[in-house]
């Protein structure tokens, strides 16, 4: 009998320990501070509808975004989902074709019930769908956007699309402030920015009259004639020389992946490293740019993009003291995500899922049920939200006044030194990792140059 009782006690202990461990596993880490659930959504599903260019020019970014979304959803679902509701994704590929964007949107908007929210990607898509999402009452999240996409043609009408990065125009404005302050002492007394970018809504988004005027007020000239190149161009020396001949001392690019790389490579090819500084939009600091650049080394023996300055409006992989960054790094490692996948978009995928979770918790708490949630209700929540997804950035659209996150900071892309305690000063002291393809990988690091601060509001009529 005593043996039976002892066995039962041990069993009970084991069961309770298992339940405790399970409960510990189910709990989110302390730093993820969602609102308390007031409604149990067990048995429900919340779908994140995402459509964007998964196979075209932006695929280098969107593929890691999908990986981030998938890993985050798997993690959140394993830890209770959204008050018990499971998250799911529905991804559709536009291939960068506006006609496909329209077709996929038509499909989504004709669903019954139609989605309350969609996740967009390209500035062009935002411009195309701006009036439609408003008409259909579907709130949209996008990483960054153009003035027209977020605020309409007059630049003053906040729509239903919310960006988690500052406007591209504001990013260039931030950079001009940085150049004017010149804390590194590299920009000289009469800095002149030459704008070199891809055609289209994204590539041209930062080149606005307001930005040019604002930069001028800061004492930074932006050349009136921008140069345009295509992602397929074999050589862009003509475009770079046009800007340098016109007096540019800084080349600013609103491109991603091969775009900044090609600009940097051309500067090295033309022997202009001492004559011009490189800068760009937040995507110019992405891992993909650094990895591509290993095929073109500068005179210092480091990849040509070493030293490029750009916006970094969120926490980065190297800021491991931030628990959210450490958490995402753990998840990427657990899911065996490669170095190219560990980029801006993977962070964005994770933070988007976390933001969606908080957005739905707050909205359901207010309305009392998931069935009552629609686009308008989500919009109301977004207008009033002040939440930092995983601590990576702060989603605060200023009471609905803004449609793009207003804080920004500047950072520089550098490469890790061999002792792994700082940036390399030359190819000789850089950490070099032999790669399977026979190339050498230089490990990129982003060094913040300023603290987070409000970016200028460079909408038409903004201040």
């Amino acid at each position, binding site marked *: 009998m005593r043996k039976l009782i002892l066995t039962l006690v041990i069993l009970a202990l084991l069961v309770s320990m298992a339940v405790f461990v399970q409960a510990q596993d189910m709990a989110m880490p302390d730093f993820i501070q969602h609102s308390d659930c007031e409604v149990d959504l067990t048995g429900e599903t919340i779908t994140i509808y995402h459509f964007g260019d*998964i*196979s*075209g*020019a932006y*695929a*280098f970014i*969107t*593929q890691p975004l999908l990986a981030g979304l998938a890993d985050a959803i798997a993690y959140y679902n394993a830890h209770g989902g959204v008050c018990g509701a499971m998250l799911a994704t529905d991804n559709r590929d536009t291939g960068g074709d506006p006609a496909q964007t329209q077709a996929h949107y038509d499909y989504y908007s004709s669903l019954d019930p139609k989605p309350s929210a969609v996740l967009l990607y390209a500035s062009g898509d935002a411009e195309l769908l701006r009036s439609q999402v408003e008409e259909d009452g579907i709130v949209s999240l996008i990483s960054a956007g153009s003035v027209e996409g977020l605020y309409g043609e007059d630049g003053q009408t906040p729509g239903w699309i919310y960006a988690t990065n500052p406007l591209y125009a504001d990013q260039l404005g931030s950079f001009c402030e940085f150049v004017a302050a010149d804390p590194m002492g590299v920009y000289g007394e009469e800095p002149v920015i030459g704008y070199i970018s891809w*055609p289209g809504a994204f590539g041209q988004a930062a080149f606005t009259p307001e930005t040019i005027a604002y930069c001028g007020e800061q004492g930074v000239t932006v050349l009136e*004639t*921008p*140069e*345009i*190149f*295509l*992602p*397929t*161009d*074999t*050589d862009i*020396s*003509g*475009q770079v*020389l*046009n*800007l340098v*001949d*016109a007096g540019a001392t800084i080349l600013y690019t609103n491109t991603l*992946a*091969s775009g900044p*790389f*090609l600009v940097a490579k051309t500067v090295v*090819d*033309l*022997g202009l490293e001492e004559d011009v500084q490189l800068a760009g939009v937040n995507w110019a600091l992405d891992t*993909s740019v650094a*990895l*591509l650049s*290993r*095929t073109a080394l500068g005179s210092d023996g480091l990849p040509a993009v070493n030293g490029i300055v750009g916006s970094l409006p969120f926490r980065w992989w190297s800021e491991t003291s931030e628990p959210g960054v450490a958490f995402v790094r753990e998840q990427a490692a657990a899911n065996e995500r490669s170095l*190219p*996948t560990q980029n801006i978009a993977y962070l964005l995928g994770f933070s988007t899922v976390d933001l969606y979770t908080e957005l739905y918790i707050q909205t359901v708490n207010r309305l009392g049920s998931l069935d009552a949630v629609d686009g308008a209700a989500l919009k109301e929540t977004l207008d009033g939200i002040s939440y930092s997804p995983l601590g990576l950035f702060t989603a605060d659209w200023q009471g609905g006044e803004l449609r793009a996150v207003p804080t920004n900071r500047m950072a520089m892309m550098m490469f890790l030194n061999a002792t792994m305690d700082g940036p390399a000063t030359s190819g000789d002291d850089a950490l070099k990792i032999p*790669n*399977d*393809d*026979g*190339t050498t990988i230089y490990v990129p690091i982003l060094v913040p140059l300023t603290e987070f601060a409000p970016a200028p509001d460079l909408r038409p009529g903004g201040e």
Partner: protein
Amino acid sequence: MSAVINFYDNNKPLINKVLSVALLLAILIFLLPIIAEQKPSRMVQSTITGLLVGSVYSLIALGIVIINKASGVFNFAHGLMMLFGAMIFYTFFSSANVNPLAAGLMAFFTVFIVLTMNGLADLRDTRRLAIGLVVGLILTGLMSLPGRDLQFVRAIIGGLVGSVLVGLCVERFAIRPLIGQPLFASVLMTLAVSEFLLGVTQMTWGSVELPLQIFAWLDGTGIPRNIVWEAETLLGGDVRLRTDLLLVLILALLSFGAFVLFFRYTSVGLAMRATAENQQLAQSVGLRVRFILAVAWGIAALLATIGGVLQGGATSLSLNMPLLALRAFPAVLLGGLESIGGALVGGLVIGLVQEWANLLFPGTQAGTELAPYLVLMIVLVIRPDGLFGEKRIERI
């Protein structure tokens, strides 16, 4: 009014030519003051860069012309064949230890497709089978060479086998069933092949942009990546020449020389030209149309791979690469759809026009979006079959 119309109808070709020449002169007069403002060094630089970039277009155009010359089909899948072939090359280039089983499968399947170009009956020939077996084994061995030192040999053989296999498979399974059908069906089929290859590329290699470091060996030879002509006193600035693009130009010129000789002096080359005229007629006089088409697609796929590898080495391998083939279309039409030399000249002209437009109209997309097509339009008005195209007379 009717007299004017009658006069135009009676002298249409002459009037069109006069108008076109007048338009060209007007453009030149418009451009002269702008050209006069340019630094001589920039003009030389733009000319050099234009020729180098144009050589890439020429190589791409050559592949398109080969298919057209043999089958009359305008191959819209050429851009994807570039990327796909370059990705195969990259796989062998970047893998220090290629699985011999995978290499063997690829080599022997290619040998099988080659041996059966005329049909499965050819497999009854034991001598051919024995040769095929030996070739398959040699290819497998070369494609499985281990280590970094031999990565170029491994990649060149792997890229060659892979691209020829792609070309032959496209011909065997997509184009051959359409022999005798309207050409438009084959053209549409190339669009389908393009989408198919895009899907396979994405599934196999993903969408990540890949660096292809094929010009790294230059660093070990002491040849600079850029040859600098210090011409400050003579031209007012330095002129630079990219060594990687210079190699592309040399390779393009060699390819053109080889194919001109091939089409002029070999029986297969001559048969290709005959097949392009009329496939059914060619078959009726004993030409092996299926074999000829297969050879054409194999060569075109190989050229596509060469173009893709060189472009990938000069920039990177990305899903954008197929769009580059669109830039070669004006070169093909400008030179003439059936002309090998025309593809070379067309590519170089488009490259030059593009770079000069970039120089003369900074801040516009004139170089890439406008000037090549404007030149094309003017040339086609004057010579509807392109600069070197065969003049065709359609009897109604």
